[in-house]
């Protein structure tokens, strides 16, 4: 046995721990962990949780990333190719160097899923409710997917011979290979969604009643080509973009000739001109009445077209079409910036003229249905995507909105949520949106400098040989690099900074995936954690004192 310890006089206490001293009582502001809405997520028309799926891609867990992504959008391989990615225009990193190439990583995940045959979970419960979807374009398929996930029985009636809508009969193969489209559609059908092809719906209400459906979602797109009045000689060859592209897909090579003129400034005009070049036209000229800046076509596509030798005539209208030649009138911008005729004419040789002036909706299936309201050629819907006729919902190109694939997908998701609530006699309550994670909340110092990975492209000379895909995907290495450029705006990514910089050890680390917790017994409220959090995931909130 040791001798009993002899303590010197006046030192009678063992040292106590400072833990007895709760310095949390000093605090006037408290740190709290928050989730802010990343600007990318806010910009995505399909409402993807981009930051959320990039988080998993960053650690190389692509399967988890794909599952998180597809909670909102079942088509990553498709939209990774054709979406105009408004998310990237909103990305905070764009103000630092260049935006994260979200679409490229998304496409990589989509392609991985196809390669590795990842599947969607089958719905756990069946609701017993039946929903009819009219049109198997992106919007209808998206609604089908979300309704199936929610346990409803879904049947799609599609007028055409194949699913995809404009994804198949509009967007050319060199931008969206058909095996990709087929694979992502098949995955939805595998969930038990039934698709009836060549089944045109003539009256929406009758179809609902005859089929005994509890609700209907209409997504018939806009397929009737707009015409402009152009006096044309009997032998003039005048076609429209929608049917040219449709014929391409139906296996009939449209006869366009060696000199093709396309009239219009949208993406269809570009697609037709690029298709004409691939069909062997020596010249493909796009005639547009406004300037380049005013063109609705996406700049990246204009660039790609130029690379392939497509020519442009800005500020020009077509006034007469004859065999082998067109009459063009030059335009000039007035003070208000509007194009006005100048009275100056010239002749442009052309074997064919393709009109790409936009499309109207074929509204025949809504004739005489009570309550339906049409305005400007499109169907009015409420906040809940329901038309004026109870139980009939609509979305995509046929309702007033921007006409893009991802907007259509977003409508499908939104409509599915409202249909689900409506079938249960409830109202869908959108969860409150947190404030945006703005760049000023980012502590930029912590991020490595890393400019974006460029997706390789097919050589311009090789593109014209056929319909091979022009833009290539990322590989696993550069997809990982690209994902890791994400700043994780407004959402903790477990960098341990708060845990480290607290001078009071007042932050508890809960382990991977669990985040952190503040120990308010000791936190003095200095705010170092919030200031040094790279991504702005901590707010300092005044205490009520």
């Amino acid at each position, binding site marked *: 046995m040791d001798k009993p310890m002899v303590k010197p006089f006046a030192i009678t206490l063992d040292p106590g721990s400072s833990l007895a001293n709760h310095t949390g009582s000093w605090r006037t502001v408290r740190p709290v962990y928050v989730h802010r809405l990343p600007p990318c997520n806010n910009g995505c028309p399909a409402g993807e949780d981009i930051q959320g799926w990039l988080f998993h891609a960053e650690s190389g867990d692509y399967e988890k990333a794909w599952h998180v992504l597809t909670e909102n959008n079942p088509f990553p391989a498709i939209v990774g190719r054709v979406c105009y990615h408004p998310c990237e225009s909103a990305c905070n990193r764009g103000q630092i160097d260049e935006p994260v190439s979200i679409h490229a990583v998304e496409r990589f995940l989509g392609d991985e899923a196809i390669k590795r045959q990842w599947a969607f979970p089958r719905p756990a419960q069946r609701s017993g409710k039946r929903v009819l979807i009219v049109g198997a374009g992106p919007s209808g398929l998206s609604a089908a997917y979300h309704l199936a996930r929610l346990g409803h029985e879904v049947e799609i009636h599609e007028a055409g011979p194949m699913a995809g809508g404009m994804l198949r009969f509009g967007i050319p193969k060199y931008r969206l290979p058909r095996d990709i489209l087929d694979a992502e559609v098949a995955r939805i059908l595998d969930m038990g969604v039934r698709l009836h092809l060549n089944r045109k719906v003539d009256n929406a209400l009758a179809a609902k009643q005859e089929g005994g459906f509890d609700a209907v979602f209409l997504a018939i797109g806009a397929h009737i080509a707009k015409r402009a009045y152009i006096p044309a000689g009997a032998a003039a060859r005048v076609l429209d973009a929608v049917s040219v592209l449709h014929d391409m897909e139906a296996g009939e090579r449209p006869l366009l000739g060696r000199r093709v003129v396309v009239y219009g400034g949208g993406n269809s005009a570009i697609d037709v001109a690029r298709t004409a070049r691939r069909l062997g036209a020596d010249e493909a000229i796009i005639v547009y009445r406004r300037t380049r800046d005013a063109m609705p076509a996406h700049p990246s596509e204009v660039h790609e077209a130029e690379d392939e030798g497509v020519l442009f005539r800005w500020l020009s209208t077509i006034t007469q079409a004859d065999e082998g030649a067109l009459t063009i009138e030059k335009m000039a911008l007035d003070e208000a910036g509007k194009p006005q005729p100048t009275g100056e004419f010239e002749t442009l040789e052309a074997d064919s003229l393709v009109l790409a002036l936009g499309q109207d909706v074929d509204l025949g299936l809504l004739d005489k249905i009570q309550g339906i309201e049409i305005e400007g050629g499109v169907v009015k819907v409420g906040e809940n995507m329901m038309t004026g006729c109870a139980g009939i919902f609509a979305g995509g190109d046929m309702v007033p909105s921007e006409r893009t694939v991802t907007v259509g997908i977003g409508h499908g998701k939104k409509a599915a949520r409202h249909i689900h609530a409506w079938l249960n006699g409830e109202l869908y309550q959108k969860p409150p949106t947190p404030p945006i994670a703005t760049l000023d909340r980012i502590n930029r*110092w912590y991020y490595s400098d890393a400019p974006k990975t460029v997706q390789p492209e097919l050589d311009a000379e090789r593109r014209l040989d056929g319909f091979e895909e022009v833009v290539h995907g990322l590989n696993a290495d550069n997809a990982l690099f690209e994902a*890791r450029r994400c700043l994780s705006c407004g959402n903790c990514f477990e960098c341990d900074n708060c845990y480290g910089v607290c001078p009071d050890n007042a932050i508890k680390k809960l382990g991977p995936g669990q985040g952190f917790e503040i120990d308010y017994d000791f936190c003095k409220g200095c705010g170092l954690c919030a200031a040094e959090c790279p991504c702005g995931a901590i707010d300092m909130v005044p205490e009520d004192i």
Partner: protein
Amino acid sequence: MSHQDIKFYQTGTFTVGNRLLDPEQRSVQSTLERTNALNSGHRACPGCGEALGARYAMDAAMAATDGQIVVANATGCLEVFSTPYPETAWQVPWVHSLFGNAAAVGAGLAAAMRVKGKSDVRVIAQGGDGSTADIGFGPLSGMFERNDDVLFICYDNQGYMNTGVQRSSATPPAARTATTPAVGPHPGHQRGMGKFVPEIAMAHHIPYVATATVADLRDIEAKVTAAMSLRGARYIHILVPCPLGWGSASHDTVRLARMARESGLFPVFEARDGEVTDSLKIRHQVPVEAFLKPQKRFAHLFGKQRDEEAIAYLQARADRNIRKYHLLEA
């Protein structure tokens, strides 16, 4: 190179941790197992850089030695806020004697360990800039000169903070303190005074001298680990902003340390056997103003009339450091 930055993986090694790095590449501070040598409940001001720096350094030393550390602490904030008898925030054997004798007490502890044959028990002596550069300077020089087996860590907050912010010989020119008021032709601390102890330590040709700031955790950990791998007299000088004495916001402590380094005002380097062997490069250079302006002790430089001359004088000091220690990537 004392530590190799990993430049990518989102934040690489710039953050405290990073879930994307291999476990062996992670910092001591990011682990659940860190000792928290200076524990919660201490009475340092909110946002105290000294408390933060001390935990960073001591946890790294504990990790490097399997926890076999004894510490001698000089009088000053670090001692007063950590150990108001009978409470202590230290979770490491720790002794306090006087304001000026930490180096001597450390040397004595090292001798005792040698006599007891406990070569695995390592000694650290530590204190503020006042105890290091001023009152404890004689004992410190003696410890260096005898090459005692002690690591001395100076937590430099550029003044006598514990007794109410008086100047020390580490107070920078133009800074206002209780004893250097912002009056006269050159308001604040006089020019041409003071000393930079790391360079004096190097003049003793001891095995290891390094500087660091609380803005670069990885660098502190690498330097403490390097120091613990050596025997003999070693010296680490850590810049630790003091919200009270500098008149800065409590949440700006780490940012100010970063600005001190990124401006060149505080050079971060490493020296072995009296020779500079490495320096931490500036990543995004900033003018000295970025460091000075957020601090009330320099407010007189940015009044109605900016004191351009004084700002230029301080900028010239930063530029000299940049040249001397090669702080910009070639």
